[in-house]
């Protein structure tokens, strides 16, 4: 529990937890990405697409990726949701370009760690603009908003992985050394 980590008394209602500061959640950079999302739109030549919905709140994201030789060359997103989910997917789409699949998975893992309160992840340079979202970890009910785009990414990458495995099973050996 957050309360324990903060060394505050572990009250089930969390009422003794210091109140998170709103300004830490709604950083300027987040609002900026929300109002002017990067890479919003559609890819004509996407290699993989993933549409995810948060059924409890109605947020949705459609993520498209274009890859070349195992490297993400382009990422676009559509959908709608709160500032946290939209800023997160906007920042993510910027950072993914030029990353390999393992690098993208690693980034998703570190972002997830940050959302679960890992202070080290929140200081890592490679997190770039995403560090502005560190404050979300103080709002447990909003963490799923921030992770929606990343869940879409991981599922999209899994889909690619699955297709590759199928190729391996039926076809030649060229993919094996990837």
């Amino acid at each position, binding site marked *: 529990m957050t309360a324990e980590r903060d060394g505050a008394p572990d009250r089930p209602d969390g009422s003794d937890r210091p109140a998170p500061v709103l300004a830490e959640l709604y950083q300027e950079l987040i609002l900026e990405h*929300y109002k002017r999302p990067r890479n919003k739109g559609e890819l004509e030549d996407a290699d993989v697409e993933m549409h995810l919905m948060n059924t409890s709140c109605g947020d949705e994201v459609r993520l498209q990726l274009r890859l070349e030789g195992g490297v993400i060359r382009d990422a676009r997103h559509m959908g*709608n*949701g709160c500032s946290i989910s939209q800023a997160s997917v906007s920042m993510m789409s910027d950072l993914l370009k030029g990353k390999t699949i393992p690098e993208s998975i690693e980034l998703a893992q570190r972002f997830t760690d940050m959302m679960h309160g890992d202070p080290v992840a929140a200081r890592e340079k490679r997190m770039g603009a995403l560090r502005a979202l560190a404050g979300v970890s103080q709002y447990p009910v909003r963490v799923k908003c921030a992770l929606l785009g990343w869940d879409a990414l991981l599922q999209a990458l899994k889909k690619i992985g699955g297709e590759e495995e199928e190729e391996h099973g039926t076809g030649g050996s060229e993919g094996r050394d990837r």
Partner: protein
Amino acid sequence: MSMDVASGPGTLRPPAPASAAGATLDLEWVRAQFPALQQDVQGHRLVYLDSAATAQRPRQVMSAIVDFYESDNANVHRGLHELARRATERYEAARTTVASFLGAAEAAEVVFVRGTTEAVNLVAASWGGANLRPGDEIVVTVLEHHSNLVPWQLVAQRTGAVLRSVDIDDDGRLRLEELDAMLAGGRVRLVAVGHISNALGTVNPVRSIVERAHAAGALVFVDGAQGAAHAQVDVAALGCDFYAFSGHKLGGPMGIGALWGRRSLLEAMPPWQGGGEMIARVELQRSTYAELPHKFEAGTPNVADAVGLAAAIDFLRALPPGAAAAHEAALMAYALECLPAVPGLRIIGPRTIEGRVAVFSLELEGVHPHDLATILDSRGVAIRAGHHCAQLLMRRLGVPATARASCYIYTTTDEIDRLAEGLELARKMFA
């Protein structure tokens, strides 16, 4: 709270306490009965505007439950000892209280259930399972909560019946001409409609719907989850065939509610769940069933919470007659005037106090409902953001979600001001 109390929409404050009026709520006293309201959240006095999800409970309800467990706890019916007698007496007295609260002809027509959802499932499975044939139609509305939709879907899938839905106009009111057209087809067996929309606060014209449905030979099931909390319910006056509500929406405990049904219908319906309490004579291959209402109450019932529900009803009925309704009308008039003053704010649903209750779906331009809820929460103002278990309605309105502020008898105009201040803060943050 009844909607038919006239109130000047121009008054911004509830009428000043005047003993002669007899219909004023002593708001300070009312609020003092609700322990959960006496707390600070995030450094601010709590403003609880999520009563449509669940209301807070007056201490009288908690006391009744504790008292039951401390003094009379025993399993009900058949027990031959003193505590079993007392427990049975309190349980059945609670049923009588619910029956009179609903205007039911007799207590035997009241079945205790977990809540409205269970009641819909009971009627859909029992009545629907026994009576629906392929091609029969069940009519719902686009305003329905998922709990007054999905159980009907399930029984339609099982029986081959067809679900149809009545649309709303731009003000969030049902388009009855659509209902008429559906009824004219002659295949509608049942109309399932909410008394009051949980998302928009619209009060549906149940009596008129009943008249139309009955004229076409269809029954009417009323989801009273919000209705029982905001309206004076009288099933005889409404003329409906089933009415269901949840205790926790009107200040009672969670996990208890009631289904009222006409005796003739309930008697003809097969049991829903099997077990103890609901049987008369049991043999290996078949059994005969208990009389109403026990036929529909398999297993040990939720006695303590039934007692708590009766205490909540007693609490409401002890308020000066008409006072709660007058209070709600004044709150609505205040909110409908002061909320739209926030730039970019839109109230989705009826914009006049007629035919609505103090449940407001809000849209603030440029601010997503979730962000709004978080920002308001940081000021101690509790609202709900999301689809409000009404995805059909959200799709119809063309919005993914709304922010909903819902009031109850303890809500004050000062709290509406706090809401408006929070909305203003959100607007500035996202400007």
